[in-house]
């Protein structure tokens, strides 16, 4: 349809505007809304993967069970630890630091650093997980290094499992933040920085008063995407520790898998998945509020 017809703006024209995206909308409804609706409905039943074929509506029993379940509370706590450590603190800060440092670096340094960081990100999750399993396990790479330095070696996956998987996630996901921040920093007009420099602001003050406010939106976007991605990390944790030892690295996605597929409680596992969605949206709301980012 022509632009002039749209500009005349009758009701028919407005409806016609929907035409081009109608097929996409339809497909989305069919392939996304359908399954999501199905998932929501399962969360209110006692569906099991094996053991019983009966599926009964149980109302909010699964949710009540979750809040009363110490294992669930433990999983929520570990998910928060994992997300704050590896996404908020780790990937975000490190990504920003790398991006800022790379602006000042020479071309070869930039290329090499960029290539290294991005390689970690491009590796399939399961490959990265095994690399880091080999790094952290008893008598693994890390212990070999500590041994050389005459420091006590230990099995990190056993003593500090949640820290080990958090570190793994930082190692793997920093590239994403680095790219976002590189793009954001490149957008800052040179003359603003130069003006601040002429006014005698030092590096740290320039960064705090000029750079950070100017890339505020990118920070918000990055934090949100990063957090949502980190909340749903499963393969990395599963391959490194399987949520163990005990349940000391059992984040929500692992807990969900454990309940739905190992304990066969599909209804309960799905309810937990919905609660995980809730956690994710809470984070998003907080970011939007804090950073006043127009979503």
């Amino acid at each position: 349809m022509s632009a002039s017809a749209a500009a005349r703006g009758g009701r028919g024209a407005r409806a016609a505007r929907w035409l081009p995206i109608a097929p996409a909308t339809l497909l989305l409804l069919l392939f996304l809304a359908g399954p999501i609706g199905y998932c929501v409905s399962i969360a209110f039943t006692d569906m099991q993967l094996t053991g019983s074929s009966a599926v009964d509506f149980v109302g909010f029993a699964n949710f009540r069970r979750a809040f009363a379940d110490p294992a669930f509370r433990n999983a929520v706590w570990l998910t928060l630890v994992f997300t704050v450590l590896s996404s908020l603190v780790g990937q975000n800060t490190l990504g920003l630091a790398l991006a800022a440092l790379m602006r000042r670096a020479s071309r070869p340094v930039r290329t090499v650093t960029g290539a290294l960081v991005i390689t970690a990100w491009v590796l399939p999750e399961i490959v990265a997980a095994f690399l880091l399993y080999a790094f952290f396990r008893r008598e693994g790479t890390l212990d070999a290094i500590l041994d050389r330095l005459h420091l006590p070696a230990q099995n990190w996956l056993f003593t500090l499992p949640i820290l080990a998987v958090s570190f793994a996630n930082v190692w793997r996901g920093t590239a994403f933040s680095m790219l976002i921040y590189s793009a954001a920093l490149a957008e800052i007009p040179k003359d603003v920085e130069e003006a601040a420099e002429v006014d005698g602001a030092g590096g740290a003050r320039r960064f705090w008063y000029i750079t950070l406010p100017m890339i505020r939106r990118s920070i918000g976007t990055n934090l949100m995407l990063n957090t949502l991605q980190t909340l749903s990390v499963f393969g990395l944790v599963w391959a490194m520790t399987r949520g163990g030892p005990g349940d000391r690295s059992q984040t929500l996605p692992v807990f969900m898998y454990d309940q739905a597929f190992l304990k066969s409680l599909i209804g309960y596992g799905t309810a937990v998945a919905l609660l995980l969605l809730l956690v994710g949206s809470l984070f998003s709301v907080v970011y939007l509020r804090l950073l006043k980012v127009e979503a």
Partner: protein
Amino acid sequence: MRPTAPVAALASRRRPHRSAYPSRLSPILACVLAAWALTGCAGGSGHDADTVRIAYNRSTDNAIRFKDAFLEDVKKQFERAHPGKKAELVPIQAADNDYAAKVQQMMRSPRTAPDLVYEDTFRINSDIGAGYLRPLDDYLSRWDQWGRFAATAKAAAKAEDGRTYGVPDGTDTRGLWFNKQIFAKAGLPANWRPGNWAEVLDAARTVKEKVPGVIPLNVYTGKAAGEAAAMQGFEMLLYGTGRDPLYDPAAKKWVAGSKGFRDALGFVRTVFAEKLGPDPSDALDPNVGTHLATDWMPNGKLAIALDGSWLGQNWIAKGPKEWPAWSTTLGQAAMPTQYGQAPGTVSMSGGWTWAIPAKAANPDLAFDFVKTLQTKDNAARWDVADAQIAVRSDVAADPAYLRSMPGITFFTGLVPSTHYRPAVPAYPQVSTAIGEAMESVTTGGSAASAAKAYDDQLTSIARSAR
């Protein structure tokens, strides 16, 4: 239940995001975007009335492919004998728990259900309860070979409704394997026959004292080892404490708050608290079974292993870890009951069966494939290859089978005093709860609190199994 090294080969999916990027990063970014790996699960293949689809578990250890080779061979025989028909093997390479979850999901829909599936007897009742499997009585009544199967083995795949849902292809027993060379250094006898739990622990203490650097005793424990911990580890202890210590068939209830349960946990706790077992981090490593079979035992790092009758298959020629001297280096002893009370020894038995999903498209063809699998020659070859205890009378008397594996006579001799796991749908959930209780005492928790947590789990399992 065979311990396998878990490789959770899970599809990971990440969403690419559009973002502005500085030109200097563009070549890198272009490569990155090109490298997004979007993997998904392949959908079920279409239905073909002439093709029988067979789902089975492929070992996660790439050195172990004898099951695949055997099935390939049976497939060829089947296709020769049934012109125009095809057999399609669907190997699922995953840890035991993940294999089960995958197959259960496949069986939920007629579009993805295989025609024939390899089912562990420990899960079969659960899957029968879920309505995933088809009763085979009509087929079995018309099959002349069924009479050759041992009654106990037939019972393993018989549900509470009295119908049979699977054809067993072998069974196993469990006991103590010990390294005679390490025993000699520790001053322990080469014909060791412990009479009760205390003597097992004393032997381990002696090894710890006299042969430092060697792991005295391995008992599988924790969640990662899955059913290996619950069965080879815990139930081998629990079933030595009294009658029906896990499930009371008369009352149709799981046993809670029993002294035997706490004692068995106490044994596991002692092993790890006194450092008589592997380092807890090794014991709880998902790959502990592989480490034991291919490293600790053949390299003389472990004195006593509470393990299965099939262990020898790891060391035969062309096996995952060739070790010709194993048959002379290792001795076997039956696991004693707690205080040596009658019958004096204890063993657990399981095994696997071939079952036909309720939603299978070609059940008749699937049973024809079972018949080919279970000709006497194929059954004997399989029991030899998989180091199983025969469940067919004609195979059990076959000289080739009896000569196949040192120790097979010993392990076959445990059959009279062996126990089968409760044939109840909720068993896998109970098994998981046992693994959690074991993990808790392995990492230093008290037996009493772990037993209490188990009792709480039983309540919720009973609730959901109404």
